[in-house]
């Protein structure tokens, strides 16, 4: 049946060929060192914008993409210049970066780590990008940040709110402008105390991944400090769609406050269903039932409609702020797209400009030079007031907004109102805070 004809000659020949094949890569790997990954050689430099265009966070992702496109226009000198006019650094002249015009490629992360990494790999290996910008899910942001660290390019995180992104999963090549769960908790605490007192029973519904976990931990810690009790924390899968089976048990749990650690399409669904179940009209323990959404965005507010009236939450930035930077950005975004930008759009836009500026200050696209220029960098005029990038964990520190669903919105875009601008000092924390401990920034990696 099976014929075996291994002759000595055959084995030797095959062995020699296989050996040569194995040895070839060793010989080849010795060559090619350009100093750092994807050093731009021509008259252009390429950015990769890696955002979710499908899945539960697609709305945020598409808005990020609009802002990133706008940022590239402004860096290349088209349009009205947007935040370049109010930014405290004046290195960018509208002629690209270090004389090179900026081009970009886009990718769809589908809010899945594997897909996001495949897309980022293609940006780095095929398109030759020197910087990846994007996010909209902390799980994805952490995965892509790790990839960029290994590949030797800079990752400018977009919308990622988990403590871990600059906590236990921080990386030397990754930078985050957005705020995080701890800051949300610290900012919301005093406002909630003023509004709802010190005796509340909180029931948490939490998205089951790094962002949900760390935000829940942060909010529970800050509300428990007020004297509230955490009745229960239920983890829900991301993109579940139907949350009714998670909401029904709340009615009998004895809790008088529901904290929704959900984001994007998930938050729209869970909030709408909670209201359909009549939670907001209930009285428990002699108090009106309340709902809190710690992380807000305009896109979620628009999706949830009138359901968000009176619901508290926090934001990184909102277009209704009155400083010059906010006004300039809202104007140029509004003129191009016909509606005000979301907080996700703002953070991606700012991150792209910050990267461009850091390159001009460093005089090189080398990730190590750029990282050095960004570390402990203080700036202003980007809509958040005075801001600084902490060198020890690559987290930005700035004021945090506490928001509330407007009672009488006049149009589709002012559904949220600013309750308080929490000063930066109140949301700061030491780099070795227990919620952020355990990580290691490592050394910057220029790749190649």
């Amino acid at each position, binding site marked *: 049946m099976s014929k075996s004809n291994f002759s000595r000659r055959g084995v030797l020949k095959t062995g020699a060929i296989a050996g040569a094949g194995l040895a*070839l*890569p060793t010989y080849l*790997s010795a060559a090619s060192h350009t100093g750092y990954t994807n050093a731009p050689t021509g008259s252009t430099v390429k950015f990769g914008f890696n955002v979710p265009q499908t899945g539960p966070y697609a709305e945020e992702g598409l808005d990020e993409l609009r802002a990133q496109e706008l940022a590239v226009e402004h860096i290349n000198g088209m349009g009205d210049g947007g935040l370049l006019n109010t930014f405290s650094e004046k290195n960018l002249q509208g002629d690209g970066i270090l004389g090179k015009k900026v081009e970009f490629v*886009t990718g769809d992360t589908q809010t*899945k780590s594997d897909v996001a990494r495949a897309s980022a790999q293609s940006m780095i*290996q*095929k398109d030759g990008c020197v910087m990846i910008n994007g996010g909209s899910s902390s799980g994805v942001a*952490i995965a892509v940040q*790790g990839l960029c660290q290994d590949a030797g390019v800079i990752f400018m995180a977009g919308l990622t709110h988990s403590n871990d992104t600059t906590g236990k999963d921080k990386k030397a090549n990754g930078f985050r402008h957005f705020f995080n769960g701890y800051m949300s908790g610290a900012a919301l605490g005093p406002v909630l105390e003023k509004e709802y007192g010190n005796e509340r029973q909180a029931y948490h519904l939490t998205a089951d991944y790094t962002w949900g976990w760390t935000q829940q931990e942060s909010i529970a810690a800050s509300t428990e400090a007020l004297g509230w009790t955490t009745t229960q924390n239920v983890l829900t899968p991301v993109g579940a769609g139907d949350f009714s089976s998670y909401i029904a048990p709340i009615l009998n749990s004895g809790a008088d406050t529901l904290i929704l650690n959900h984001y994007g399409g998930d938050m729209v669904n869970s909030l709408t269903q909670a209201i359909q179940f009549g939670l907001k009209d209930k009285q428990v323990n002699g108090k009106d039932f309340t709902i809190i959404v710690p992380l807000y965005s305009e896109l979620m507010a628009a999706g949830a409609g009138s359901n968000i009236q009176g619901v508290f939450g926090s934001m990184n930035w909102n277009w209704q702020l009155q400083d010059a930077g906010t006004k300039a950005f809202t104007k140029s975004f509004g003129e191009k797209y016909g509606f005000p930008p979301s907080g996700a759009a703002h953070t991606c836009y700012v991150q792209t400009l910050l990267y461009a500026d850091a390159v001009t200050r460093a005089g090189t696209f080398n990730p190590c030079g750029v990282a050095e220029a960004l570390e402990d960098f203080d700036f202003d005029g980007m809509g958040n007031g005075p801001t600084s990038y902490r060198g020890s964990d690559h987290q930005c520190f700035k004021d945090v907004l506490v928001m509330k669903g407007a009672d009488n919105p006049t149009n589709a875009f002012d559904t949220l109102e600013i309750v308080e601008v929490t000063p930066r000092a109140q949301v700061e924390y030491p780099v070795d805070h227990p919620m952020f401990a355990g990580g290691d920034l490592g050394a910057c990696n220029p790749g190649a």
Partner: protein
Amino acid sequence: MLGLNTRDFKLFILVCVLALAAPFLLNPFPTASALGESFNAGYPALMQRFVIFGILVIGFNILFGLTGFLSFGHAAFLGVGSFAAVWMFKLLSYNVVPAIILSVIVAGIFSVVIGYVALRRSGIYFSILTLAFAQMMYSIAFSDLAGKMMGFTLTNGETGLQVYNDDPQILMGPDSPTTPHFFGLEMNSQFTWDIGGWSFVFQNGYYFSALFLIAAFYLSIRIFRSPMGLMLRAIKSNQTRMSYTGINTKPYMLAAFVISGMYAGLAGGLLAAMDPLTGAERMFWTASGEIVVMAILGGVGTLIGPVLGAGIIKYLENIVSKINDSILHQWFAIMPDWLDNVLVTIIHPFIGKGWHLTLGLLFMAVVIFLPGGLVQGGEKIGELFRRKKTDDAADGAKTPAE
């Protein structure tokens, strides 16, 4: 040669050439040209996926192609393989050898257990059982249930498992590479050959995986042509009759299931070796479905079909999904504006995030017109040129290889 008949040996050489020359074959257009920017697929990350998913589907084909048992949970073995490999990186060092060995073993153990239970039923019930097991494993990994019960992080839930600087890595010396490597040969180091407008990238990791693909393909030919392969085919044509003749088919079935599970584990281990991070989403049922689609698209029960199917789907997923409207406008720039706009409007639903639609149409066309998959298409084209000596050719194709 190598214990293969002439026809199989030619096929084997073809796969070797395809695998080793992939950096050239997949970069047909100059890098900076519009066609090159859109259609070139010869970058390491994608080439790795071509060969790794090729291995996975070759293994799947040993089960589905030979015995006709449709496993709808194969991605679960891929997933456990990846988790095993990343754990080896975390505990020992970045050397890929222990990682790949363990991933094959762990996937083998899981497939023995699942196969033992699932193979008690056949047909649709078998498919549903494998699907149920795979979804169970997915849920356990996604919520990290096993880890929570044992009191540590086993799969790290949605975030996925990755290697941290403070992991034990007991075999790591001070000078050891900090990326996956084969006794010092780093997987991600590469050599770029710029010639003319082309640039060809030769990466260690790709060639490492390609050698596994070649070995996996060779093993699969040997299994197809072995007495056991014949037994498996007999089970496919009539399992009941086999039992009545007094043959216990169970051990053969289980062996096929475990072999294909180990192939999946190897693919999972290689995925982790190329990119040391893994997550539960790799085990989701859509991933299992994708494997089935790859096998059917290429040609179930054929030797080279799985490799073709895996390649086409990964190509569509990574290349077609990145084409957007502004790229289309560039292509049609020479046409009058109205025609340009009409063409872009027509093509728009099929590109970018609409690549699933393109894949669906292709799949339908293959299933309707070429039930034997793309391999059948290739044979039909071949016959057109060989019609003269039909008698010989048709006979040669139908005679069993034994």
